């Protein structure tokens, strides 16, 4: 996993509540057995005017000009500004894979769905919760200002706007540590092999039916 420390990225607004993972990456693309390559199909049904299927040449497909990601001023965006309950629905990790592959490294919203939130951290994406008022302010500013970039700093847990306003955010200490260092969870957990083995042996003794 790529580490996340600081990002000075162009922000793009996606002004919809309850954006679900089916919308982030529609199911026809989940048939892939790979982790990479989902970016061109992120938000497929909103982004293109035709119906997308795996194997299509996405560069030839008609774009929906009204969709923010397609507007010239937002090209190259790496910070996604979203509304409440972002990432609800299925557990598909293809959703963060698609966002990462598209180029997003940070997502700012008033709230996230739990599984999606968790999946982001596993893939080097930083999901940031700000109050609804602050998110509103950012929406207004990003829409009013072309080239609006946000400076996201994980170490100090702050977002700085082009005007110099600073917003602090919370992040779990363990997740922060993993993200800052790009650490693989499995490797970390396997440092505790003996504890897991001891726990398992106990369990087998007290509830043997779980091991039938």
């Amino acid at each position: 996993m790529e580490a996340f420390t600081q990002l000075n990225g162009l922000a793009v607004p996606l002004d919809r509540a309850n954006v679900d993972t089916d919308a982030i990456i529609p199911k026809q693309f989940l048939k892939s057995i790979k982790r990479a390559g989902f970016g061109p199909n992120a938000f497929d049904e909103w982004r293109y005017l035709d119906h997308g299927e795996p194997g299509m040449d996405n560069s030839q497909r008609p774009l929906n000009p009204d969709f923010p990601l397609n507007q010239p001023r937002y090209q190259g965006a790496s910070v996604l500004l979203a509304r409440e309950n972002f990432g609800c629905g299925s557990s598909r990790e293809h959703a963060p894979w698609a966002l990462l592959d598209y180029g997003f490294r940070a997502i700012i919203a008033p709230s996230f769905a739990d599984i999606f939130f968790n999946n982001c951290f596993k893939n080097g994406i930083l999901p940031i919760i700000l109050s609804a008022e602050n998110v509103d302010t950012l929406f207004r500013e990003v829409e009013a200002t072309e080239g609006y970039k946000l400076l996201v700093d994980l170490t100090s847990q702050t977002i700085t706007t082009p005007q110099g306003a600073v917003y602090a955010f919370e992040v779990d200490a363990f997740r922060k540590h993993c993200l800052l260092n790009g650490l693989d969870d499995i490797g970390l957990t396997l440092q505790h092999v003996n504890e897991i083995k001891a726990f398992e042996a106990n369990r087998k003794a007290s509830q043997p039916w779980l091991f039938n």
Partner: protein
Amino acid sequence: MSAKTLYDKLFDSHVVREENGTALIYIDRHLVHEVTSPQAFEGLKIAGRKLWRISSVLAVPDHNVPTTDRSQGIADPISRLQVETLDQNCSDFGVTEFKMGDDRQGIVHVMGPEQGATLPGMTVVCGDSHTSTHGAFGALAHGIGTSEVEHVMATQCLVQKKSKAMQVRVEGKLGLGVTAKDIALAIIGRIGTAGGTGYAIEFAGSAIRGLSMEGRMTLCNMAIEAGARAGMVAVDDTTIDYVKGRPYAPRADQWEAAIAYWRTLHSDEGAHFDAVVELKAEEIEPQVTWGTSPEMVTAVNGRVPDPAQENDPTKRGGIERALQYMGLTANTPIDQINIDKVFIGSCTNSRIEDLRAAAAVAKGKHVAPNVKLAMVVPGSGLVKAQAEQEGLDKIFKEAGFEWREPGCSMCLAMNADRLEPGERCASTSNRNFEGRQGPGGRTHLVSPEMAAAAAVTGHFVDVRQLLN
């Protein structure tokens, strides 16, 4: 000792270690399907890692499998590759898999409980958000992402922070024609799709205790649609009777010890919940969703809402967009909405009791002429066999329904079963998101009874009128 919630008991008893509020919890059962596992198996292979405990894993293909004739295999080459990849990975790693054609094959959340592979007191995970279903057994069960699938495969543990606890109490007696699905939708209508975010929900109260195991599974299945990763119900005789004698249930010599432990799996008197929501069973009516999120729901006697009545601009925008997508006009009575297709199936409502209830409504009637397709997709091969033994297949076929092979099918339309753009469907599944059942498709979530009633009348109708 202070009073504990069921969630406390389940969580605390699985903590291997804890540091600064982040715990490593031990996983007893890992269910696997073809969509969210290939990248996890690949990760293990690349890192040269093995499965920590092979006997904890059970695999089944469900999302991509065809529900029509299977003798020719899977027509779509990409779907076929995904299922073949599961077969290959299971054989490489020595995992038990119920393949297509095996009677035990079915939707992963139907198969697990049916096999007794889901037991009270367990932690159950699966790379699928509807893993919450298994909480019906007094288990701690939730969906995980593919990175976590790989993590559990390699370590038998999950990195987890404890959630807050919510109790949803439903007291009283459900009316005729009102089901666990209606309870679930009514709860989501009340608390919203993010109402349970950050919580583990325990469903309690006399109406919940009165539900069968299958009803409890339907309810816990929908916990994720309320934003909660886990839903659960305390263990009682209903739970224990259901588990007894299933293939993976405790052996006879283990049984007494098992049930003695299981009987402790309930919230203690006076246990603290961070939030409590109460509903009266008598006030719950058959529900129908009208929008593109499960919280966009009303009683069958209600109307499509009017965005002009909504003051919150984000919500108003959401309603307007939903009505436009759904092709609905504000204030239309729900029972005047005509449908094109009917889907009875999914991990929410494809078990034998669901099929019996739908068949009871369909019996002696016929699918309405405006309904192009009404399909019944049993949750597993065993459910299908049981239904056929009871003659339910005949009732459905005589009424003009199609009787299919088990799988996820048109719940998410990864296989060939799907809605065409603009088609409207009465569906017993769990998500009515845009495009969920096919691009441009319009989904209305209902109970199996309500779906069958819509099939035979051609529009939504209060099933109680047909039952009286």
